């Protein structure tokens, strides 16, 4: 009984007008000489994520060296939107390679490739699959966690005087497949390697940013006897550091050099050389030597994940006895003489 409002009658011409006005502006002519073009898709945001930043940096450095162009697109935290955005990137048909980094990306990219079969993808931290058309590179988290576990075990053993509890901690932002299948088992394998009596205190924050909660959790864990905590909680890691500082205990950093964050508190750190991997893979891609669907797996021996044992703070704060024992384990793994028994892999 009411007539449709005038809005409709006004809006449609208005929309068309906007379209025409902007459309008439024209677009610069055809691209000149086409150089190798790369799109980096960040499943999340760059800010606050060292691994994504490392990937972006690695890609950009190598691209700059070889005269390729790079475009970075952030996908945001809504996983449901990633697929649409990767599709849009592929639809541009101007990118020779789309690079991303997250175990969930291969499944998304496979879907996209159904529509754009010529599009090449490279996923660092990918999850491999045979007869895949997507190139993946993945880091051996189990080995890294094993190394860190050994170190944690050594630290808690070393602090045994007057302390009956042998306990190490692990704090995760959220539970995710790699955490449950690779990191936690690897870490456990590591400290059990030192002493099978050591226990694990594993806790989850529920997100990657609530540093206050991380601090409270860590305080509780330290109070209950953990001497050192491996923290894999994104921005919330800082809460663990602050708790450790107050409790006079220690923190283990996971994926990038963390010694400088709080010298004497962060006394051990692993590293995932996402930048190195990115650079090498991009180099291969530009040279045309990156095989489609190749799945490269890299661990300590290959030098893509490692325990940082040459940092000044490490040398300064970790007792010689611990360092000596740790050195042996590290060198065994680097040389390949120590390998882990088969376990769940991606």
């Amino acid at each position, binding site marked *: 009984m009411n007539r449709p409002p005038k809005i409709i009658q006004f809006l449609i011409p208005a929309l068309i007008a906007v379209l025409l006005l902007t459309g008439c502006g024209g677009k610069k002519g055809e691209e000149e000489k086409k150089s190798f073009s790369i799109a980096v898709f960040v499943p999340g945001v760059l800010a606050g994520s060292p691994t994504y930043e490392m990937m972006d940096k690695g890609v950009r450095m190598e691209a700059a060296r070889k005269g390729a162009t790079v475009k970075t697109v952030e996908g945001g935290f809504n996983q449901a939107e990633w697929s649409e955005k990767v599709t849009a990137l592929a639809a541009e048909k101007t990118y020779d390679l789309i690079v991303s980094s997250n175990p969930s990306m291969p499944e998304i990219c496979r879907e996209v490739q159904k529509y754009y079969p010529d599009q090449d993808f490279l996923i660092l931290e990918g999850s491999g699959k045979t007869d895949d058309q997507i190139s993946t590179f993945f880091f051996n988290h189990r080995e890294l966690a094993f190394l860190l576990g050994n170190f944690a075990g050594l630290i808690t053993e070393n602090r045994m005087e007057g302390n009956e509890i042998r306990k190490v901690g692990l704090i995760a932002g959220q539970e995710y497949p790699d955490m449950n299948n690779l990191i936690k088992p690897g870490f456990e394998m590591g400290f059990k390697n030192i002493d099978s009596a050591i226990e694990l205190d594993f806790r989850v924050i529920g997100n990657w*940013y609530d540093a*206050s909660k991380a601090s409270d959790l860590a305080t509780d864990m330290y109070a209950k006897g953990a001497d050192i905590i491996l923290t894999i909680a994104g921005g919330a890691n800082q*809460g663990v550091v602050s708790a450790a500082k107050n409790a006079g205990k220690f923190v283990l950093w996971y994926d990038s050099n963390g010694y400088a964050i709080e010298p004497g508190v962060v006394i051990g750190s692993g590293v995932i050389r996402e930048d190195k991997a990115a650079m090498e893979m991009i180099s291969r891609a530009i040279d045309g030597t990156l095989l489609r669907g190749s799945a490269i797996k890299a661990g300590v021996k290959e030098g893509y994940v490692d325990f940082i044992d040459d940092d000044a703070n490490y040398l300064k704060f970790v007792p010689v006895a611990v360092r000596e024992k740790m050195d042996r384990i590290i060198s065994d793994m680097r040389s390949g003489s120590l390998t882990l028994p088969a376990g769940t892999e991606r």
Partner: protein
Amino acid sequence: MIGKALIFMVPLLIAAMGGLITELAGVLNIALEGMILAGAFAAVVAVDLTGSLAAGFLAAMTASGLMAVLFSVTSLRLKGNIFVTGLAINLITPPLIAMVSKLLYGSGGVIRLSSGTLNLSQAESLLWLLFFTGAIWFVLRYTPLGLRIRTAGTDPDFLFSRGIKPAGIQSLVIILSGILCGISGAMISLKLGVFIPGISAGKGWIALVAVYLGFKKPFPVLLSCFIFAIAESLSDAAQGIIEIPANLILSFPYFMTITGLVLFSIAKKRKQ
């Protein structure tokens, strides 16, 4: 446990006091969360630039106060829907912070402080808790402003008939709540010496819940904040013993509030 809860609840309580005065003045303050976040960010930036804790708090109060001004202008002056504009403040804060952070640091992410972190002992925490609750209680009860705030919420027309504009009082109170949220945010970020996007982690919402559960009175609100803090530390400790899915725990405050709201409404209806 109690000591830990005391430390935990300081920022929560201060934000809740901000929520309390706005609620009493008749303003549904959804924007607490965004204002806390703004304060947390400004505090870290200021301490990073100047190295002074006082500067940090001052900057936090200014930044949150400015967000509050935006909130009060859009909701009171432009007469926007208070829920929608409040939500807008929460939505607008994170991207604004990210952009400012990009301008200042080239990255929109974590900002770490090398020095100047705030460390509250249990006794100091208790002192601050009592100070803020007591101060708000005193202002509400013993100052002309307090009378105006209370009347603005229940009988704005009456206040107007006494020659005082309710909207003016409401704007003032929104800005005050912004300043309180600034202090709250500064405490959160300076205690850890770091700013992380999303570091407020729902404290603004919980503060609002505490206001409702505390019958909109200062000391009961203190009590409900305490209960939250205890519940929080219990759930932290429980993780080491039993497994409670984190997501389910996160839903509790919502269901608790709705239960409180329903009980409140039933009681009100019975009374009529």
